[in-house]
């Protein structure tokens, strides 16, 4: 998921740098989904991919008559969620876009004069220049994915049709545990079942994993803590 997010985010950002007219509208458009409350974006996506929803209707028009079960199928649940996360990519795009504008123009021109094609220019000029930003977005991406909670639980609840009251899922991890994430397990065990012990163990586990990735960021020479 993080890989896709990074590649897709970078792609969209590069696209924006190429567009001269209407770029502003486009930027607004891709940033809005990021601001949409996760509950809403999830609800909208579950509706879109519902068995009788618009996506399947469109698919039927182009001749796909047995579409996958999307949020109701253990195999397709995660890909559907990934699609949802790609939709909310605005933040990453803004960061990449800003860093692409900071790529030194002189280096680009020098590479052009030396006869480097677009692929080589990207590989040897653009990538090294934005490398720290990529690292930042990958690490934060991994950390945010580890705390994936709202989207997974809302999608699972609504797709399964078991929303008794918000917060008490009858069918956690629907379908077949494929939407179960560590944070969900923590709140399920600790708050609904009052199994404080196991929940704390899971919290520590999550904490250790998060810190490992945070260390990567902190170890950078010109890191987040530097500057005066």
């Amino acid at each position, binding site marked *: 998921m993080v890989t896709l997010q990074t590649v897709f985010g970078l792609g969209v950002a590069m696209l924006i740098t190429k567009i001269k007219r209407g770029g502003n509208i486009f930027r607004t458009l891709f940033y809005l989904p990021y*601001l949409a409350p996760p509950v*809403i974006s999830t609800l909208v996506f579950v*509706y879109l991919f519902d068995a009788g929803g618009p996506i399947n209707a469109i698919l039927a028009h182009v001749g796909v008559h047995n579409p996958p079960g999307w949020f109701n199928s253990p195999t397709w649940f995660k890909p559907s969620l990934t699609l949802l996360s790609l939709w909310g990519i605005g933040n990453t795009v803004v*960061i990449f876009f800003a860093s692409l504008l900071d790529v030194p123009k002189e280096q680009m021109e020098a590479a052009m004069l030396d006869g480097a094609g677009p692929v080589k220019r990207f590989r040897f000029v653009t990538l090294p220049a934005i490398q720290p930003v990529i690292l930042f977005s990958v690490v934060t991406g991994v950390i945010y994915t580890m705390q994936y909670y709202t989207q997974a639980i809302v999608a699972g609840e*609504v797709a399964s049709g078991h929303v008794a009251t*918000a917060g008490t899922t009858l069918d956690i991890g629907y379908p077949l545990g494929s939407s179960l994430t560590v*944070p969900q397990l923590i709140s399920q065990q600790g*708050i609904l079942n009052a199994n404080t012990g196991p929940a704390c163990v899971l919290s520590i586990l999550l904490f250790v994993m998060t*810190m490992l990735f945070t260390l990567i960021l902190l170890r950078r020479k010109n890191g*987040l803590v530097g500057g005066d």
Partner: protein
Amino acid sequence: MAAVMSPPVTRHAGINRTARSAARRRRALEWIAVHSLAIVAAVFFAGPFFFLVVTSVMPDNQALSGALWPSHWQWSNFRSVWDRAGFLTWYKNTLMYAIPVTVLTVVSSVPVAYALAKFKFRYRRLAMIVLVSAMMIPPQVTVMPMYILWTKQFGLGGTLWPLIVPTAFGDAYSIFLLRQFLLTVPKEYIDAAKVDGCGEIRTLLRVVVPMIRPAIAAVALFQFFYAWNDYFGPQVYVGANPGNWTLALGLETFHAAHHVDWNLMMAANLMVIAPIVVVFFFAQKVFVEGVTLTGVKG
């Protein structure tokens, strides 16, 4: 002579012309490629919004059919949502959560960020490391001890207070963003204020705060939206107490046991998302600058 001279000239011009037209053709192709990709991306990003709006005005029987366009526009859906028991209460609760959180975060985070950016003291580096780590810790890691503290010790389970009060003690992400911005404020201004006889607090309020207004605006907006969108926090503390639900929790209830009022749900979604969209259009620059500040310069 002229006759002898002319062929090379024309040939030269010919090469030039073909080269130029090839370059032009390549640029045209690139233009087409970029713009068709952009259109595909635009459809991907706008599509869900399109269906959100279109479905919200569909009649009841049509919303379950996967229809792509409403047979007639049923504006009364919004009325039904508005009149639905609870919706106004959720709106009020969400505001009662989001507004104090925003104010408290700004008031508490600015002084901390100022100290971290402009004061020299021992363990400042360590303080920054702690801050960045705190920023990265998922809320679910700290939820268990916090939950036990707030519900068992203070007996505030079922209210939104456990989510509001902690923001009076600073928010790691906001402090970080403000601090990054404060680094760009020249020290000379602060020194000048001191020379003119301002104490630390007056320097902060009269000189520094006006200079970092864009960053403060960004932090306030981010915090407000965070609270507005928050699902996990309210679920933990008020999930069992529907009277204190926020919008994020309430939205799910448009889903009954065996059927979904998709049209009403989308209408409700639209009413929750609308304030965000409006604010965003007015404050777009603030957002983009805020995001860039933490990501690129970080």
